[in-house]
């Protein structure tokens, strides 16, 4: 598409075509291309070939999961009841999607209107991350059709997962509402946008509350297994706080990562305003992320000191822990600081990749790798890995499709 644009193609940016007639919904879905052109564009993109390959292998296996049961795609471990579906799909996806509530807070609450051009990307990143966390959950649940049981059929309100379920559900609706303006512009429903504008503050505050609690709750879930997670990754009084604070830098870093990807691969869809502000905003995000990183580093150390886990640092697990902390926390912290000081956005982008990696490693370490550290290590079944890749590919496909259409990376031009 980038090359198309350099040849003079003008993407949809408003209700009306150049000649003044209105775009139909179908035309908008086709990105303003004719069906033939659209197919040609899809076929030309090598990334799509990769996706098709993934689906060719992954879809049958995903379907098989529901026909033959979890036992067919996982090792059916009783000792490791949670595998990659939750380890990756829930515990990594959700913190990386914390960008939604943080952008809302920055722009709507703290009045940082200068972040406006990246706010919607932050919100979308949040919404889709949560949505696919739920998809992953549905793949993992033994009886996915009972998903609403904790809400309406049989309630266990003392359970941390109960809180996660309610909060994620409520927060998902919050995020959908927050993105209604983008959708209504694109579809041409100005009323919906107006309504949301009037309640945006309430939505934003609800978003902060819900996010604080469920990001923390994902950590608190592991306090049910105090002896099973390695002490360096576990601290019962601080677990929720560790998870919450790391979600802050993870969400911001993920936003930098995604915006970088859009800048590289979807430049055709970004407008001047977005592209011109991006470097400055990247540094702003990096600054926020570095504050969260330093907080995280300090409370991690406090956690170790509080539980007196120093002796573990000298073990093999300690080495692994140090690797995670150095590469995933300290290094991005240094890189972010240097980037902010030298106003070097590319450096900040590199730092963001590191921080996202660090977060993912931390969650996988907690949920899978150091879980049952006194027993043995579980290597996921290859079908489990394939399904994770397939669902994640779908996440990317949906993400890309929305970005290509709705006014996320560009500003909608009102024609009336």
């Amino acid at each position, binding site marked *: 598409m980038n090359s198309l644009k350099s040849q003079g193609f003008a993407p949809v940016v408003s209700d009306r075509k150049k000649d003044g007639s209105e775009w139909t919904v179908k035309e908008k879905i086709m990105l303003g291309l004719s069906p033939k052109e659209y197919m040609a564009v899809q076929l030309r993109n090598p990334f799509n070939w990769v996706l098709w390959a993934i689906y060719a292998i992954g879809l049958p296996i995903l379907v098989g999961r529901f026909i033959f049961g979890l036992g067919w795609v996982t090792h059916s471990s*009783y000792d490791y009841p949670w595998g990659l579906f939750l380890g990756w799909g829930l515990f990594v996806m959700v913190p990386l999607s914390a960008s939604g509530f943080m952008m809302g807070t920055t722009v709507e609450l703290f009045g940082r209107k200068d972040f406006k051009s990246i706010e919607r990307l932050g919100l979308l990143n949040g919404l889709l991350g949560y949505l696919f966390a739920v998809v992953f959950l549905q793949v993992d649940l033994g009886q996915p059709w009972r998903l609403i049981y904790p809400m309406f059929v049989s309630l266990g309100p003392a359970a941390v997962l109960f809180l996660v379920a309610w909060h994620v559900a409520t927060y998902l609706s919050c995020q959908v509402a927050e993105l209604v303006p983008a959708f209504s512009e694109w579809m041409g429903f100005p009323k919906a946008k107006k309504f949301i504008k009037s309640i945006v503050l309430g939505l934003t505050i609800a978003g902060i509350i819900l996010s604080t609690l469920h990001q923390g709750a994902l950590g608190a*879930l592991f306090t049910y297994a105090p002896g099973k997670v390695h002490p360096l990754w576990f601290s019962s009084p601080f677990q929720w706080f560790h998870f919450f604070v790391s979600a802050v830098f993870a969400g911001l870093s993920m936003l930098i990562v995604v915006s970088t990807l859009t800048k590289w691969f979807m430049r055709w869809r970004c407008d001047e305003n977005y592209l011109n502000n991006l470097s400055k905003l990247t540094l702003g995000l990096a600054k926020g992320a570095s504050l969260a990183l330093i907080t995280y580093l300090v409370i991690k150390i406090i956690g170790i000191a509080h539980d007196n886990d120093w002796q573990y640092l000298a073990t093999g697990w300690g080495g692994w822990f140090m690797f995670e902390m150095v590469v995933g926390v300290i290094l991005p912290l240094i890189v972010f600081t240097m980037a902010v000081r030298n106003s070097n956005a590319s450096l900040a982008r590199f730092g963001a990749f590191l921080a996202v990696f660090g977060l993912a490693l931390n969650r996988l370490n907690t949920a899978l790798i150091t879980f049952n550290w006194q027993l043995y290590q579980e290597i996921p079944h290859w079908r489990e890995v394939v399904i994770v890749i397939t669902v994640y590919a779908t996440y990317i496909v949906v993400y890309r499709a929305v970005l290509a259409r709705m006014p996320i990376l560009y500003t909608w031009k009102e024609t009336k």
Partner: protein
Amino acid sequence: MKMLNRRSFLKGGLAGGAAIAAVGTSKQAGAAGQSFGGYPDSMGVLVDLTKCVGCRTCEAACNKEQGLESPDKPFDDLSVFEEKREGGLPRRTTEKAYTVVQKYEVEGREHPLFRKVQCNHCNEPACLTSCFVNAYKKTPEGAVMYDPTVCVGCRTCMIACPFYIPAYSYSSAINPVVKKCIMCYDTRLKFGRPPACVEACPQEVMTFGKRKDLLKLAHQRIGQNPEAYVDHVYGETEVGGTAWMYLSDVPFDKIGYDTHLGDQPIISYVKEFLAIVPMVLTIWPALFTGFYLLSNRKDALKNEDNKS
């Protein structure tokens, strides 16, 4: 963007309030984390490991009583003791076996020691407190029951159980459920009868009775025969106490028992988080509305500066 006026600000506040009300149910979470300590007259089982001969009669009895799938090997096949699961660990409870006997060769002990494993029916079960659909129930008789009709299959109970007891019927696509010992509640315990394994055991390794009486008996046995037992009743205090308790003549950590579980029920580790829930729910809205007003005051002042 147009600055919010007072009216729309109030409306926004209301929407926020509604969202909070929607999740307000979780406030109960803070209150529900109270200590419980178990039912006073609940029943229990005292397992005297020194008496077990590893005949696996209990496993067979459990299989028949609970109508479980037939085993991979006959119940009189003693080669199962040499079977190892991943990590070189001894076999554990599965969807086909609610109880298994393990064999331990202990240095300095003339004969191997056999250990029967099944759900310990904790006083404050981790499985129960972690379940978000309330599928578990601790009956006054002491059994920890599981209701397969509401289970969603998130398997948090398996994460939470400190004894690695609950298994899951992964093989079923339509109706996978948690599989664990229910102390024969619906066929026996409810009517005051002991679990099938207790009754079947030829060695009377297990003594069935009120938990509080069993504790006295356990200490009496240790007291009368101090050289035959280590001075500890496993399950008396572990994770808040369990209905099934154990006597042994070798230190418990040598025969696969986790001796680092502590005396606090698992839920006590979760309380720190549950306690912050109501706080966040009440303080955050006020705090962030305050931030909002402050930041917009700055804006307003700036606007005035610009005007003048």
